[in-house]
């Protein structure tokens, strides 16, 4: 143990004396900071969008209520298509109710799917094809390239920094002839390599995590829960780094040249970070293909046409409010003459949803199966595990967006169920109705599930690290001095 400490301090002094460590640490700090600033700017922009949506939503219901009071007391003649008394107006989006997915505290660390999937939907009883199939607005070229976020720095660049510092830990000494001297003085290869390893792990991790911690603490609201997540995140990053340190260590005890080590390690990086994820993506898509969107569009079309035929009579009835403006007001018994065309639109949307839901279900189910496969086979590449973990901490992972969509779907059903008796039964909207309007409350995953997933991911990083360390240990006695 003392030898390790000795070598550790000695190595640190040596590393500090030469350029490499400083350059590498500086570059890591620089790209981490840039990535975090980049992520924060984007998160703040998106947060202000949803804050704005929430603000508009909060103002909207009181405004509608005031208008309702004016209309019922006869002070104002209502707009036929924005009539607070008319359940068809309220239900089709006039109350401005939204389903909003909040951004997580750690959102700036990974863009994930946030540049692709909307974080809010405006609720209405219209069919889901009218509002749930659109994505965020982003240049497809940028979606293809990906963004410069902290997840990119950790998953892609950090391993390179580690490999640059470690590929010739022993081989370099052997090539210079100094390894012989150290071992002749009674140093054991094990202590030597551990000392060298710690001398490199320590600066790399303290720079990366230091920048992360300071940045998050300075810019985000950190409560106890976030603090725990931050520590868990640090563990994942440390484990992912440990994987690359371990693989470099193994290469170093195999007695090959530095150039050979460099090529093999870069090969491992290319394979695990670049190739395996996209090949796995293709494999998973081929193994669990989604149904065809082209056919889905066609089904939508056919179902809509059937619906139009079914409700042709209602659709052919004319708007009566032009000749009889009093139909825009509630009757004394609390009923309201919802225009037949609007009733037809409600029914049409309801039927389209009902008939198309089975199809949508197939997409969702397959996507869930695909996600499960990623969780199951992700261990084949630590890069996948690290990326998935980082996006989970950031709350921008595809699983969270899928949960959001399924909660929006449930909310949409609740919304339609609320309005169905009112629209079809012709019941005027009252202040009590507005008070009872369904509201969306985002339900974050249960902690247990979250930690279970994290545990599995930690394990799938820890096992390869242990295996690599074991093999390296087994080969230690074979380390040649020259």
């Amino acid at each position, binding site marked *: 143990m003392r030898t390790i400490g000795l070598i550790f301090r000695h190595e640190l002094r040596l590393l500090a004396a030469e350029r490499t460590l400083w350059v590498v640490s500086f570059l890591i700090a620089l790209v981490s900071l840039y990535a975090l600033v980049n992520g924060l700017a984007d998160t703040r922009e998106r947060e202000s969008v949803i804050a704005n949506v929430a603000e508009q939503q909060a103002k909207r219901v009181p405004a509608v209520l005031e208008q309702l009071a004016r209309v019922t007391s006869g002070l104002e003649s209502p707009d036929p298509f924005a009539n607070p008394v008319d359940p068809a107006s309220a239900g089709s989006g006039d109350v401005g109710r939204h389903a909003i997915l909040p951004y997580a505290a750690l959102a700036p660390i990974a863009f994930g799917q946030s540049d692709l999937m909307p974080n809010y939907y405006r609720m209405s009883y219209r069919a889901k094809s009218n509002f749930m199939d659109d994505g965020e607005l982003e240049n*497809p070229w940028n979606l293809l390239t990906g963004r410069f976020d902290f997840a990119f720095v950790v998953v892609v660049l950090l391993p390179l920094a580690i490999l640059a510092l470690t590929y010739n830990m022993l081989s370099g000494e052997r090539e210079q002839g100094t390894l012989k001297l150290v071992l002749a003085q009674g140093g054991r290869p094990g202590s030597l390599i551990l000392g060298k390893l710690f001398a490199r792990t320590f600066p790399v991790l303290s720079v990366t995590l230091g920048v992360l911690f300071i940045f998050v603490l300075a810019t985000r609201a950190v409560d106890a829960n976030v603090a725990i997540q931050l520590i868990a995140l640090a563990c994942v990053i440390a484990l992912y780094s440990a994987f690359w340190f371990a693989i470099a260590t193994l290469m170093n005890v195999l007695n090959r040249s530095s150039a050979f080590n460099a090529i093999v390690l870069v090969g491992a990086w290319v394979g695990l970070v670049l190739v395996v994820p996209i090949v796995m993506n293709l494999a998973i898509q081929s193994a669990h293909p989604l149904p065809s969107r082209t056919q889905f569009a066609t089904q939508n079309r056919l179902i809509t046409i059937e619906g139009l035929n079914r409700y042709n009579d209602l659709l052919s009835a004319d708007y009566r409010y032009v000749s009889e403006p009093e139909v825009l007001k509630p009757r004394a018994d609390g009923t309201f003459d919802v225009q037949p065309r609007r009733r037809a639109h409600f029914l049409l949307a309801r039927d389209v949803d009902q008939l198309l839901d089975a199809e949508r279900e197939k997409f969702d189910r397959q996507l869930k199966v695909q996600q499960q496969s990623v969780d199951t086979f992700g261990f084949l590449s630590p890069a996948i595990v690290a990326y*998935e973990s980082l996006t989970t901490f950031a709350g921008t992972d595809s699983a969270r967006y899928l949960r959001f969509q399924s909660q929006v779907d449930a909310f949409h059903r609740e919304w339609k169920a609320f309005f169905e008796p009112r629209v079809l039964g012709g019941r005027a909207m009252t202040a009590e109705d507005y008070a009872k309007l369904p509201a969306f409350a985002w339900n974050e995953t249960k902690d247990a599930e979250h930690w279970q997933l994290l545990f599995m991911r930690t394990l799938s990083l820890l096992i390869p690290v242990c295996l690599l360390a074991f093999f390296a240990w087994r080969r230690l006695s074979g380390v040649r001095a020259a």
Partner: protein
Amino acid sequence: MSPVVRIARREALEMWRDGRLVAAALIALALLATAFAIDWQRQQTYEIERRAAQALDYDTWLKQSDRHPHDAAHQGMHVFKPLPALASIDPGITPYAGSTIWLQAHRQSEMRFRAVQDATGLQRFGNLSVAWVLQVLAPLIVIVLGFNMLSGEREQGTLKQTLSLGVRLRDIVFGKALALVSAITLLLSPALIALIVAVATSERASDDGLRAVALAASYAAYFAIAVAVVLAISALARSSRASIAWLLALWIVGVTLLPRAAADLARELYRSPSRAEFSKALDGELSAAHEAAWKREFSTTKRWGTELPLARWGEALRLDDRVGYEVMDKHFAALWQSFADQQHAQALAGTATPILALRKASMSLAGTDFASHRHFAQAAERHRRTMQDIISEDLVHHADPRGAGHFDYQANHDLWEKIPPFNYAPPNMATAIKEAGISLSALALNLAFAFCFLAFALRYRARRLL
């Protein structure tokens, strides 16, 4: 046998013997074959489905029952973007852009069903395609095969020996370059076969053939850049270790770091709106334009209120559409222009990193870039407007005269037939070349740089050796 060929043969033999060539060939073959097989099959299936769906969609339109034309317009039509044959080589932005547009009344729609939305987060690591292998991995293969071609000989002292035999340095370098080029050609020949298959099975074989030639030439230029840079650095570097370190660093920065940094920079330079901003601006301007038009034509700003008799609804719909076209053109043009500018800025950044230039050129030539996407979206919107105009005219002539019985009116087959089927012709080769102009120039510039660099490196090395 000329010394160049002799040296090339010896180099090739060495690469073959030490296993690097075999390993690289196997990896390249496996990845290229998998990527092409899957993308080609996807493209073929998609095209079959698309044709069937497009035909069925129009058929349904024609055979629909009698109904009020505005309801028909609300239900609208679907149009499906064709996937060019060369998408099986370079899918470009295809998975990240939509494929289907629902042409409906009132509003220009966007393309929906982006494949990336129907995928897990893994999709964000990138897209395996022939183009990806060629753009990202091929330069790495050139590096691994060539990093020690000159530095290794120098380390072993054989370079001086060969020179002392009277062989010129130029011939040695040409010989090595020839070996490297032959090896790369051999390794990547599956990609060439894939390209030929894609063209041969294409329905626009003549246009696609020309595109394929330009595509092959662009990739050849890219590999030539890689070969020149690898040899130059191998000549300049103090040792093979330094050579590999420099080359790997260049590759990492060029392939992983710069593209993302360029994307971020381009986003800063040419800001594109978020969906919320875009909708808000478009909605605001649309309602202002509508209000102004209604005030002028119907002396009211209250839309669809009691002031507007049903006898003028057709007229009002027509007015809404016409006013809206201009506003939507403005907003969509600005949005798309910001995307196009971002892309052009990144193609310009291609002067610094050839992969960006090649990526853009490759997508443009394959017909899978944003310009092709936009071309389709514009054609679809023109079709929507044709449909809207015909329907509004019909309303003005047939529904409006009925007064209060506006919605009793039902149009029939005669009207449905007036709407033409959606026939879309993708832009041709000339347009693609024009679109790829900046990136092709950037690539050519890179090639010139690379050769100058190699010439400089050789002169430097020759001076040192003498």
